[in-house]
């Protein structure tokens, strides 16, 4: 069965989201790499281990969010550039966006828990 083909106007909406998702993916991924670099630099300079752990914990989810948004952006741009698989590619992109949002939600929850635990004196950073 032939799939639904998006119109030029619809492709414009999908393409815009694709470009923005890719840009956000790059920003997140670069942020993750910088955190990883900071952790490695901290290890080399003998920094406090809790700070190194904090940078490592920040780097992995940032990289995951970045890669998910990059994947979503690539699929969305694919919707615009290809013919015949528009709905399938859009669903792939939405799946990647769902994963990215799940990770963002999880990071925030962990961050809130860490802040609450820090405030309650369960542990101390630095």
């Amino acid at each position, binding site marked *: 069965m032939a799939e*639904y083909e998006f*119109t030029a106007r619809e492709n414009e*909406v999908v393409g815009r989201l694709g470009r923005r998702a890719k840009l956000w993916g790059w920003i997140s991924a670069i*942020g993750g790499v910088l955190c990883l670099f900071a952790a490695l630099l901290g290890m080399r300079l003998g920094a406090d281990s809790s700070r190194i752990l904090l940078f490592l914990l920040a780097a992995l989810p940032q990289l995951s969010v970045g890669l998910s948004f990059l994947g979503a952006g690539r699929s969305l741009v694919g919707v615009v550039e290809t013919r015949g698989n528009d709905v399938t590619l859009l669903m792939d992109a*939405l799946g990647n*966006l769902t994963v990215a949002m799940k990770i*963002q*939600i999880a990071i925030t929850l962990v961050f809130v828990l860490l802040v609450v635990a820090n405030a309650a004196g369960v542990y101390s950073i630095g």
Partner: protein
Amino acid sequence: MDDIAGTTRDHEFTEEQNADLRAVGSHAITWGFVCVSAGVACIGLGLLGATGKLHGTAWRLVLPSGVINSIAGVNFLIAGRDFRAAVHTQGCDVRHVMEGLTHLSRAILVQILLGLATIALVVLGAQLSGGH
């Protein structure tokens, strides 16, 4: 204007596709609530700082970041509602999905601006602390 109400053709999504749309809609709504809650908390702290009830000048950064977070959150909430509408309604699926994508696009743009502003502030802060 991003409204795409002029769409004439339509397509009904399958059950499997509706499940994907439901998932992205639910997560967009959850993330929207998180952003709005964080935004409102920042605005509250910012207002306390602005009125002198909290010490320091951090409120000058906290207040605008709260407003920006709230704007992103509202767009995520609206996008989630649009995706859910595509699942629950018959006959306007593509229009609802396009409206959802438009709001998601705006929300991501706001996140990008907030991310870039944060990076700029971190770099500026590092330079200032390095200078002392």
